[in-house]
């Protein structure tokens, strides 16, 4: 879940801040998560010191910096050093810049995608594939003519009574919301961060 939700933000950060091409950014993101999991960098996160996203960003910046230095050394003919992130300082550094909005946007998409996958799996396992399909068709898929499908067309497409479309959507939205909360909870460093993220995504909705 962690790499799925943060994949977009990490790639975006590498593209924007480190000026990497998309494919290079994705390759480095893959390396970053692999190294982070192998060396358990994220286990050093201390929720008391700040948000997990800020910590992750600090880790990534140092990883990218090391990678850039290693690349420069290789160009000069030297060998690559072990990543200095083994000695990563867990004191967090906030670094707001112009990329924040894009990073946040990617993070939101990542969380929504994680939740959608989880919702889809659970609902399908519960025999509610049609519920998912109606929800995806109405709330997720980009409509070709920029207008959402009508309930009647959804009813015809999925072979359900038109009056059931609302029920299917209601149920799916509730379940999806629950999965979004689950994802946020799992990704947050602590309760305060979870609540802040939930407010950000859900507005005034009760948790």
């Amino acid at each position, binding site marked *: 879940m962690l*790499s799925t939700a943060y994949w977009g933000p990490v790639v975006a950060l590498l593209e924007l801040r480190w000026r990497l091409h998309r494919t290079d950014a994705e390759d480095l993101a893959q390396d970053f998560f692999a190294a982070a999991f192998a060396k358990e960098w994220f286990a050093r996160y201390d929720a008391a010191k700040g948000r997990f996203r800020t910590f992750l960003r600090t880790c990534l910046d140092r990883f990218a910096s090391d990678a850039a230095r290693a690349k420069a050394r290789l160009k000069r003919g030297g060998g690559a050093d072990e990543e200095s992130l083994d000695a990563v300082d867990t004191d967090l550094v906030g670094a707001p810049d112009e990329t924040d909005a894009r990073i946040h946007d990617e993070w939101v*998409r990542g969380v*929504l995608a994680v939740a959608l996958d989880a919702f889809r799996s659970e609902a399908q396992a519960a025999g509610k594939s049609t519920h998912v399909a109606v929800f995806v068709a109405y*709330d997720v898929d980009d409509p070709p003519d920029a207008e959402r499908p009508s309930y009647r067309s959804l009813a015809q497409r999925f072979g359900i009574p038109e009056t059931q479309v609302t029920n299917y959507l209601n149920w799916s939205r509730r379940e999806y919301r*629950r999965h*979004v909360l689950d994802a946020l909870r*799992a990704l947050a460093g*602590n309760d305060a961060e979870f609540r802040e993220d939930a407010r950000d995504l859900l507005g005034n909705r*009760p*948790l």
Partner: protein
Amino acid sequence: MRVISSATGHCETMTPLTPLTPHATLSRPGAMSRSAAARLRATLAESPVPERYRLVEVIGEGGMGVVWRAHDTVLARDVAVKVLAAHLASDELIERLAREARVLATLEHPGIVPVFDLGSATDGTPWYAMRLVQGKRLDVAARDGRDRRDLLRIVEQLCDTVAYAHAHGVVHRDLKPGNVMLGPFGETLILDWGVARDADPDFRDGTVVGTPGFMAPEQAAGQRGDASAEARADIFGLGAILRELVAAHDDPVPRRLRSIIDCATATNPAGRYASALDLRDDLRRFAANERVLAHRETIIERVARFASTHQTAILLVLAYLVMRVAILLWRGI
């Protein structure tokens, strides 16, 4: 160590996240367009209540929902809005919250918060608006050093309200000090009717409801009966509230009051007061220093009670007798 919350939804309990190991699978998210994300976000962030009610702040979180102080923009007044918490939005709890609103709407009594409105969000999550009571919860008020007589009067009012609900076939099933609010005008209001059983003869609820310490033994055992049988569980709840309030005082508990509590909280439902009004009447008798039905008095107790009730008259008679004896003795001398 990263942590995630437990499934309580309130995140008081934090448990370690699954360890991040080298074997963790790196997965990339499924494609989601920006417009899809924006649409989903809009759906998720949609206010659960209509524009008429502007949610201001959370004033309470219960087992079932979140209560907001909200501003009714049409009538320009503050109200309380109860919304089912998103993580609890199961079909059963959706029905339960809506039923709570309907039950409250059928009960028009000064001791029951009136419901103004009931609706549901676009995802079907129910909410209802009710009078905003800006008072103090009984469990908090009981610690304020209130006079015992005052606390007994509160329980009498609770008995009145419960008796009214029972007369309409409604059983609260979770009476406790935390579910009682003392209003600004001295009114006593019973809150949280979320687990109440209504007058519907087909009422079904397979779950054990109530709060330990205030829950009747038959309730804790999951025994079911008709509304009148379950009403005895509310009598137990009233007795448990009474016991809690009396215990908040350091003064010794009079035996007659102890008997009232014991009768209301009898293990056997048949041994309890038959109705909330019977309990109320016994409390009134206790307050008036009359004989209470729950206590079989000894001769000494009866004399003592008589003496304390008619203290002035007895003193006058005694003074008269002493004077007479004194006169007789003086004449004799």
